[in-house]
């Protein structure tokens, strides 16, 4: 046991002695691990915010089937749904896109702000609009300003509130108006793009089942598209999984390319290292002793590299707001995001980054070390 303690201490001292080599390897590790840790933190942050939105949202989302996509649903259905036992309330909502100047913007028409996560204020009145802060800055709008959407000069709106980007990721770039105004704007009076159904706990599935009978062939209307909270969660989760999976795949490719690069870089000082191994072997060290010290060095390098990567990622995301990485995960955000980038640091990506670092350093050092250690000391020393 004492021998292993001796080798453990020696590994740390060796890293400190060979500052140049340790520095180069750490630099390479940071180059590989920092984008990974940062991207994973952003992905987890966005995922968490989506999950929070879904959890605090409605229990059922109802739309009409239209060519396999969500189509407008008649407001007449509201009464029918409200009569189902277990339903507490039904809120119509319109979500669409239209032009503000030359830019396409998301417009939400709703009479209950609670349906938008994080927004617990009163809904805008007729002719009033809540505008996302970053959108307002872009369109040069301030509180009290009047504006109209591209093709509807006859329907003016007044900015009564700016939505803080801190509320949620999506609020900074959308416009919220009154439901009735949205009906006018999108020229579909009597229709909503979806109905949000709130139910008593445990009744959502049975209500969804009953609702699915509405729209059967004998009803002579297109069937309803009913999405439960669970289903939405699954869709969103799958979307993020695919996104994270794609990123991970790209990353593994980059990782594969990083190995030869690190192999070359870890050759930095390898001649001296080889001679050292020869001397150690000549003075009685076993091959396993040499490998043990190398493994411990790699362990330290990987631990230091991944810890530094996490620290720098925190700085990158919390202090620099994810400059340069946000658009990879949040569509519509620029390279310099104008809203707080959501980020969460979870144990699994941290563990993965440590394992990545460890396997990189191991691949870069263990084989050359082993080869030097099993060669007769006379050859390696000279």
């Amino acid at each position, binding site marked *: *046991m004492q*021998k292993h303690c*001796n080798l453990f201490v020696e590994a740390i001292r060796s890293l400190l002695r060979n500052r140049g080599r340790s520095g180069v390897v750490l630099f390479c590790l940071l180059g590989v691990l920092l984008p990974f840790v940062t991207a994973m933190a952003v992905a987890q942050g966005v995922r968490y915010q989506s999950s929070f939105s879904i959890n605090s949202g409605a229990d059922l989302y109802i739309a009409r089937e239209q060519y396999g996509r969500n189509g407008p649903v008649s407001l007449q259905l509201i009464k029918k749904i409200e009569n189902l036992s277990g339903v507490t309330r039904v809120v119509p909502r319109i979500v669409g896109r239209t032009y503000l100047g030359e830019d396409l913007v998301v417009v939400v028409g709703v009479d209950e702000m609670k349906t938008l996560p994080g927004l617990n204020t009163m809904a805008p009145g007729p002719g009033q609009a809540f505008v996302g802060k970053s959108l307002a800055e872009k369109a040069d709008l301030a509180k009290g300003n009047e504006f109209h959407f591209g093709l509807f000069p006859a329907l003016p709106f007044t900015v009564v509130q700016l939505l803080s980007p801190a509320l949620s990721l999506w609020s900074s770039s959308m416009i919220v108006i009154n439901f009735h105004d949205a009906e006018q704007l999108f020229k579909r009076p009597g229709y909503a793009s979806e109905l949000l159904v709130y139910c008593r706990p445990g009744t959502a599935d049975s209500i969804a089942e009953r609702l699915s009978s509405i729209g059967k062939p004998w009803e002579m209307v297109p069937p309803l598209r009913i999405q439960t909270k669970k289903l939405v969660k699954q869709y969103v989760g799958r979307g993020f999984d695919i996104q994270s999976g794609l990123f991970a795949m790209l990353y593994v490719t980059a990782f594969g390319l990083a190995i030869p690069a690190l192999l070359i870089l870890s050759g930095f000082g390898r001649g*001296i290292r080889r001679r050292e191994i020869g001397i150690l072997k*000549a*003075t*009685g060290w*076993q091959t396993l002793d040499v490998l043990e010290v190398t493994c411990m060095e790699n362990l330290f390098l990987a631990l230091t590299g991944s810890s530094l990567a996490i620290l720098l990622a925190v700085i990158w995301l919390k202090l620099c707001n994810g400059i340069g990485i946000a658009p990879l995960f949040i569509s519509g955000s620029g390279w310099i995001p104008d809203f707080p980038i959501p980020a969460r640091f979870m144990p699994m990506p941290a563990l993965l980054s440590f394992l990545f670092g460890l396997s990189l350093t191991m691949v870069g050092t263990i084989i050359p070390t082993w080869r030097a250690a099993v060669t007769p*000391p006379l050859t390696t020393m000279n």
Partner: protein
Amino acid sequence: MSLLEGQDLCRKYQLSGQDPVWALRDVSCRMEAGSWTTIAGPSGSGKSSLLALLAALDRPTSGKVLVGGENISFATDVVQARYRRNRIGIVFQEYQLLEQLSALENVAMPLLVTNMKGKTRRERARQLLAAVGLEARAAHLPRQLSGGERQRVALARALVHDPDILFADEPTSNIDQKAARQVLDILHGVKDRGRTLVIVSHDPQMLVPADQVLTLEDGRLVS
């Protein structure tokens, strides 16, 4: 039974695209416990190659090295390393000190792979440095030491685990007369403690105290 024995040792070096070079041809030798053997001969005669085979730093092309009757030439890497750690100490011609370690750390290095605690290890290394007259230079790096001092650090490192056999390759060749005298005194001290010495040298001073002188010429033992 001899403590150390070389039987029909041959060592051939094959360089790519060139004829093989025979560094040693059928060399047999025997070293008794507590004896002093000097291996002499002109440059390129195979002295260092013979020492490398006897110290298990290299493997012979044919023949064998017996230590207490056990063949270590073709033993596993583990057995050879154990032999180097427990039975022998080696002083190299070019000192072979680790440049980034202090004299004290260099001397203590072989003890890292034992179960000796740090304090005991440093104490033992300090004793050895004191024995070779370098206690005051313990914190110095090899590049801050003279050739003679480096040679004495190498000697202290070779002796730190109290080996049965001490191998030294040209221990006085790169140092001045005074330093050579100090090294010779240390070697006499080792011999007086009943240890076996195998010294490669063409220094006449090394021939005088020897119980046995092996002279090599062109890879063959001539006397």
